C-alpha cells in the first residue's frame, strides 16, 4: 500500500508498505530517518517517540496507514538551520547522553513539555518523561538537561 505523509515539513510518499507495518518502521527503514529508535516495539520505552499532528506518540504503536495525510515530526526535524535545538544543546551540555539510545525519544518528550509548560516543576518533568526509559544515566542528568533548557527558554 502507499503511504503519503508529511515528515519534518516535507511531503513524503512511500510505496509497498505492509499494512501491519508501524510508523517507526516506515521512518527508519523506508525514509532513512533512523533518529527514532526501536528498543521495545511495545510502547514501554519511548525511544521511538515522535510528534503525530503535534502530539508525542510512540511511533512503534502507530500503524503506518494511520499516519496517511498527517504531520509527523521526528527528532531530525527539531534542529533548525542554526544548529541544534536548545533542548538538544542542553542534553549535550548537561551530560544527559551516554549510549544515546534513549536520547531522541527523550528530546522529543522534553521538547513537547517545554512547548506546553514554561517553567515545569520537577514533578511535572518526571511525569512528562515517565514514558521514556534510560538504562544508562540514572535520569539525574536528564532532569538537569530539562531544567537547563527551561531556564534558557525563560531567559529568552
Amino acid at each position, binding site marked *: 500500500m502507499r503511504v503519503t505523509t508529511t515528515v519534518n515539513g516535507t511531503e513524503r510518499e512511500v510505496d509497498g508498505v505492509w*499494512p*501491519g507495518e508501524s510508523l517507526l518502521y516506515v521512518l527508519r527503514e523506508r525514509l532513512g530517518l533512523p533518529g527514532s529508535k526501536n528498543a521495545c516495539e511495545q510502547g514501554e520505552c519511548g525511544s521511538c517517540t515522535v510528534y503525530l499532528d503535534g502530539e508525542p506518540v*510512540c511511533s512503534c*504503536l*502507530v*500503524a503506518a*496507514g494511520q499516519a496517511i495525510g498527517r504531520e509527523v515530526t521526528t527528532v531530525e526535524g527539531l534542529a533548525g538551520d542554526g544548529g541544534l535545538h536548545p533542548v538538544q544543546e542542553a542534553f549535550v551540555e548537561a551530560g544527559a547522553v551516554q549510549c544515546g539510545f534513549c536520547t531522541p525519544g527523550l528530546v522529543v518528550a522534553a521538547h513537547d513539555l517545554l512547548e506546553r509548560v514554561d517553567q515545569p516543576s520537577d514533578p511535572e518533568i518526571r511525569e512528562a518523561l*515517565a*514514558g521514556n526509559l534510560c538504562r544508562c544515566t540514572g535520569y539525574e542528568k536528564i532532569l538537569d538537561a530539562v531544567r537547563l533548557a527551561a531556564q534558557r527558554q525563560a531567559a529568552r
Partner: protein
Amino acid sequence: MDFLQPRTWQDALALRAERPDALPIAGGTDVMVEINFDRRRPGALLDLGRVPELREWTPDDGRVRLGAGVSYARVISELGERLPGLAMAARTVGSPQIRIRGTVGGNLGAASPAGDSHPPLLAAEATIEVVSAARGRREIPAAEFYTGVKRNALAADELIAAVLIPVASGPQQFCKIGTRNAMVIAVTAFALALHPDRRSVGTGIGSAAPTPRRAPEAEEFLAGELADAGLWETRGPLPETLARAFGDRVAAAADPIDDVRGTAAYRRHALSVMARRAATWAWNDYRTDSRKAA
C-alpha cells in the same frame, strides 16, 4: 493484509460486517503490540481513527456519551468534573504517549481483566453502546459486557460506538496497585462511586477475577448501613468498623489467581485495604461536598 480506512460510521459498520477477518484498530496501543510481536495476523486492519463521531463526547440526559475513540488524555483534561472516577483511572494508564493514543473503546475491545477503565465504568453503572449494520444499536450494561478473560459481549459484526456514563452525583475514587507509578499493569484495582441521589454505592474490581466485576453484596451492605445510621442525611463520619467490613466484603467478591504480578492472597488483602480507603476518602469528600444538598 488489507488496510481499511472508513471515513464515516456507516462505512465502518459495513466493512465490519463484510470483513469478519478484519481487526478494528483505534489508538493501536494493544493491537500494534500484538502485530509487532507476530501474535496476531488479521486479514485486515480496520482503522477507526478517521471516523469523526467516535472521537466526540456529548452530554446526554444526565449522562456523558463518550465516543469509543476518545483518548485517555482527553478524558483527563475534559471530563474530570463529570466523570471523576474514569478520569482518575485514566491518569494511571501507561505513560503520556499511551494516554494520547489509547482509548476507552480500545480498553473495552481488549477486555483485559486488568484494564483500568473497567472498574470505574462498573462503579458508575455505565452502559456500552454497540452497533451492527444489520441489527442496529443495543446497549449493554458494563456488568454484562465482560464475558471472560479478554472476552466481551460484542458480536462479530458489531463495533463499539460509545460508552454512556452517568454524570457523577457524588464522590468517586479509583485505586490501583502496581510496582511503580508509571507504566504499570494493575496487580489489582478498585473503583468506588457514591450515588447520593439514590442513596446507593457502586463498585468495580479489576485484576482480581477472570473479568472485571462489581461487588454487589458489598455495595448493598454499605449503602444499607449508611441509610440505617442516617448518615446520608447527617453526613456524619464513616465508622472505621463499617469501612473495614466493607473492605472485607469487597475482597470476598473477588476471585483472584496467583500470577507473575502477585498472589491471590495478596490481591485479596490489597482489595480489602483499597476498598476501605476508597470508601473513607469518598465519604470524607461527601461530608465536605457543598455542591449538592443531601
